[in-house]
């Protein structure tokens, strides 16, 4: 810990840290905008409006 100087932290931040941050941002955007996820998200945001009737048991009428 003691050897972690300003220069070392800056070097890590500018190399690994930079690409880690970019990769994470890209990953999140890809997940959020992936076309196949749209249906999941739309279902999820509507499903919470009707959820007080108890757990689903798999025996519900379709």
């Amino acid at each position, binding site marked *: 810990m003691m050897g972690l100087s300003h220069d070392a932290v800056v070097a890590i931040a500018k190399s690994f840290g930079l690409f880690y941050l970019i990769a994470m941002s890209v990953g999140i955007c890809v997940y959020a905008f992936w076309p196949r996820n749209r249906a999941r998200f739309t279902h999820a945001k509507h499903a*919470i409006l009707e*959820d*007080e009737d108890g757990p689903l*048991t798999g025996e519900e009428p379709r």
Partner: protein
Amino acid sequence: MIAKFTVAERQWSLVLLVLTALAGLAMAALGAGDAMGVHGFIVLIVSLGLIFVVGGGLFAPEPTEDRRRAYYDDPIKLGLVLAMVWAVIGMGVGDWVAWMLAYPEARFDAAWSSFGRVRPVHTTGVIFGFGGNALIATSMHVMQRTSRARMAGQVSPWFVIIGYNLFVVMAVSGYLMGVTQSKEYAEAEWYADIWLVIVWVTYFVLYIRTLARRNEPHIYVANWYYLAFILVVAVLHIINNLAMPASLTAAKSYSLFSGVQDAMTQWWYGHNAVAFFLTAGFLGMLYYYLPKRANRPIYSYRLSILSFWGITFFYIWVGSHHLHYTALPHWVQTLGMTFSVMLLVPSWASAGNALMTLNGAWHKVRDDATLRFMFVAAVFYGLSTFEGSFLAIRPVNSLSHYTDWTVAHVHAGAMGWVALITFGAIYAAVPMIWRRETMYSWKLVEWHFWLALAGTMIYVFAMWNSGIVQGLMWRTYNEAGTLQYSFVDTLVAMHPYYIARAIGGLLFLTGAVVGSYNIWMTIREVGHEAKARDVPTDSEAGEPAVPVAE
């Protein structure tokens, strides 16, 4: 409570309670003469009381309820009631402290009633007592509903809620006895901290196991926020509280950190307590109860995902903005400042998402005080996150730091955002959990709303004025190049604002008392019959004699 346990669960609860009773007895015996001994007696009395409750129902008939078909809401009821009890205690003590600052005679000259002991009772009472119970209770509501599954445990939810409140009682009673490890929002000593870790891990496991049995393909975003809250608070709590007890039979301990490392660890903890306790958890509430109450899906689900990752990633870095112009290396301060400014983007994305959800339903906001609580909370969330980013900028901080401006900022967040979203969520949840058509009195909800809003505005404006006056007086020089004002001059200038602050706090407290009465009457109300449901819920309640479908 006990009637819904199987015999095996009753026995298991008894074993747990006997173990905690023994731990309490050991603490009381070994810690005699120290605050730890008093805490031992508290643990012992609570455990013995619960042993009688569980023991009394040990041989009652087994429950007939079909657990596959019913949510488990009884622990939520306890959590919501305790949240309101702590709200009255925490805000009551807070307002007393506010009057004490305006009129020092209100100090009453006892050791326990000194500012340094009573102030953490206020902060712990409102943050952990009120906020924490509300978060745990609503998370148990949200995790079941969004998963369309019952909570994964019958005993563990009770253990989490009762155990958590035992921690808060130990913390608060300890402060009055002079126990503190001098870390803001983490004053409780080592044994209370260890107990909280046990409770918290149980809570985390309960949440994950409930999500694992979900009947929905996707985990709704509110759960992400609640989980970030649980997971990160665990990490923060464990690391910031690393300490060596001076003795295993007394409360005193010494932190593993010292000097500026201690300060940095503390404010990494402190600001992330704001981030993950007071923001992430309450955003979980916002993302569930606001769309639900407005009966409109969240405006943009994608935006909620983007802002979730933005908030969790950026917040972790900003703690060092509490240490501008200190021994902390300059570049660490700059790092905290930069991330604080960037944080505005995901924060406003969340606030904007909430407001856009309401766009097109403003008549509901006008007519329904419960929804209005949540709407105003989202506005205050936007305002106080803007103010926070602004105050984190080093030159701005040179004016604001150590002044009442900080107090104004904290209370804009704590009252305007956290407390208002919580009241909104509680007013939305109580009729659902207790199966009532509505709250006992919608007029009292209106009263509470306007009292809370007026109280917040008076409080925040008083402290803005006080803080900026104070900061400017501190940096005013006369022609000779010396300071124009003495410290006492600043106190005289601030006095009227302190009175205004105490009045604002009193209004806010009055609102909480009105709300508690309304909630209590909703629970007790016999006029409102339980809402009939066309699916089996509990074995005793909520079922029509003949199923509707037939």
